[in-house]
């Protein structure tokens, strides 16, 4: 059965939920890793969308819009090279460029925004589903699990404490070879890595605005996180079925993204307020 909250996560991220719903959902998020992971993804998408560069607009656009409003009609703007043959054929001037009135432009912008938003959401849902399925499928083969269980059953507390590993066994449809698991991890980590690469670039552009001591502290902490990520990746290569390591790796990468975001924000605000 599908989680009833999953449909409302977008409203939550957009801060559109009523207070009781928001509180109920927040309680739910504490316990539901699937939903909390989806919320994180949604927030990451929103953050990335916010950071998209503004598209440059041709200088003459506004004057054209103004004149369109003034004449009160949709008017074709002549284009220098716009299909002269067709224009000749039809006997009137036709161009490949369409000029719209202001309300039409606004409507078009809204439509494009809605479509791209829906596209991103659909893509994200698909990728989220894939990543959620991934770790479950890539469980360790039963033999490995049994071996591990046998090795660890030494402590006094573990007397008779082994639970049947039915989840691992029933979902072991993909052989958890080292390479397969690493690929799964890579797929899962890609959005984080892309975000990290973009933030790294942004930070590199702005880092001169930061105080050298702050830069050193940030770099040393990024190095600490990188080391943790490296260790987690190695651990995952050695133990591909380990869901804890997968989650730990994802969380450590998320932390790196957050730190880079924070550093970039710090650098960008430093411009107006002096070196930070």
């Amino acid at each position, binding site marked *: 059965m599908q989680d009833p909250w999953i449909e409302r996560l977008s409203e939550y991220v957009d801060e559109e939920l009523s207070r009781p719903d928001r509180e109920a959902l927040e309680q739910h998020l504490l*316990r539901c890793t699937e939903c909390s992971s989806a919320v994180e993804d949604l927030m990451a998408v929103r953050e990335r969308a916010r950071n998209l560069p503004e598209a440059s607009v041709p200088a003459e656009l506004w004057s054209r819009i103004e004149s369109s409003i003034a004449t009160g009609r949709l008017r074709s703007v002549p284009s220098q090279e716009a299909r002269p043959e067709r224009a000749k054929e039809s006997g009137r001037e036709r161009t490949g460029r369409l000029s719209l009135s202001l309300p039409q432009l606004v409507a078009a912008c809204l439509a494009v925004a809605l479509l791209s938003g829906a596209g991103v959401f659909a893509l994200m849902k698909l990728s989220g589903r894939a990543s959620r399925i991934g770790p479950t499928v890539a469980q360790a083969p039963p033999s490995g699990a049994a071996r591990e269980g046998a090795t660890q059953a030494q402590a006094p507390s573990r007397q008779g404490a082994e639970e049947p590993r039915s989840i691992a066994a029933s979902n072991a449809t993909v052989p958890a070879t080292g390479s397969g698991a690493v690929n799964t991890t890579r797929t899962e980590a890609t959005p984080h890595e892309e975000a990290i690469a973009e933030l790294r670039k942004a930070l590199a552009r702005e880092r001169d605005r930061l105080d050298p001591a702050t830069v050193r502290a940030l770099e040393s902490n990024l190095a600490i996180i990188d080391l943790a990520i490296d260790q987690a990746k190695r651990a995952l290569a050695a133990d591909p079925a380990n869901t804890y390591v997968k989650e730990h790796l994802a969380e450590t990468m998320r932390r790196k993204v957050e730190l880079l975001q924070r550093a970039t924000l710090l650098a960008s605000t430093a411009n107006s307020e002096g070196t930070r």
Partner: protein
Amino acid sequence: MLAAALALLVLLASFVPQPWAWAACPTPPDAARIAGLVAAYSDDEDHDAEDDDEYGNTIPQPDTTIVVRPGVALEIENFGGEISVKTWDKDAIKIAADHSLRDKVIIERTGSAIRLKVKSRRFVPAVIRYRITAPRWMKLELSGVNTDIDIEDARGEVRAETVQGDITLKGGVGFASLSSIQGEITVTGVRGRIEASSVNQGVRLVNVVGAIFAESVNGGIVIENAESDSVEASTVNGPVTFEGLVSDTGYYRFATHNGCIDVAMPEKSNATVSLSTFSGGIDSSFPVTLKKIKSRRFQTTLGSGRAKFELESFQGTIFLRRPQEARQGCDSDDEKDKDEKDGKTKVESGDQDDR
């Protein structure tokens, strides 16, 4: 005639109240309203000429007290120095700032906030030591760069952010969001939701009642005597320690990559405890039954198991102990093999386990 007009002007001017007096009036004069909702003025503008210090030494400045109506927030942006905020029962804010006379503290007053900024005549960032006494209810938004921030007994929302400086929050009620890059965060005796984050230092929360979210990268997290049904604390490089009441409906999550997790569980706790580690260990000072859930994931149930604990250390030891027992030091990891005592539970986890 001209002289008479000038004299009349001077006489009229003498009746115009000072800006701080406007602020103190329950209804500001029309002139202030006409000028807009934003009034900007300096707290020391009358003293520049007579007290100017050519060496730029820091000299205590006269206090300014402004009457504020409920709901108004205080916003301070500082570069270097300190922001110290204490509270009182009056609906007024007392502003004192120590700084070079080459710098000016600008007090901006909007409909919803009083904002303190610095105008530096040397075009270099100023160092200001703010000493503020604010109404208890006042929302505080404080930010700095090389700035320590101290807040006492605030009952409004608190947001404090600094780059190179410590943040201390003592007493008070309400939501607090505290964040530093290079400084330590210390919270003592606060009732309310706390979000505390440091990058390069630790976070310490003592006697906090309310939800806790604490985070660090290169620092430890210590939570003592907490009374909360929602606690999340995580770091990359450092230990995490928790001592407090365990609510039956609570959720508690502690995680680190490189460090130990030390959790004091009261005797009659009702909790399901999940423990995960890759190459660390698990050590309990009291008998527990660990069920293996998945690879390197264990679970134990105490009492009815209603509360939920998630303890995760990638390569450190997870300690469970009783509150009265001494806190575990992470450096004891090396000696854990020779420290087995009666009734203790120890699980070693690591790569060798699988091979």
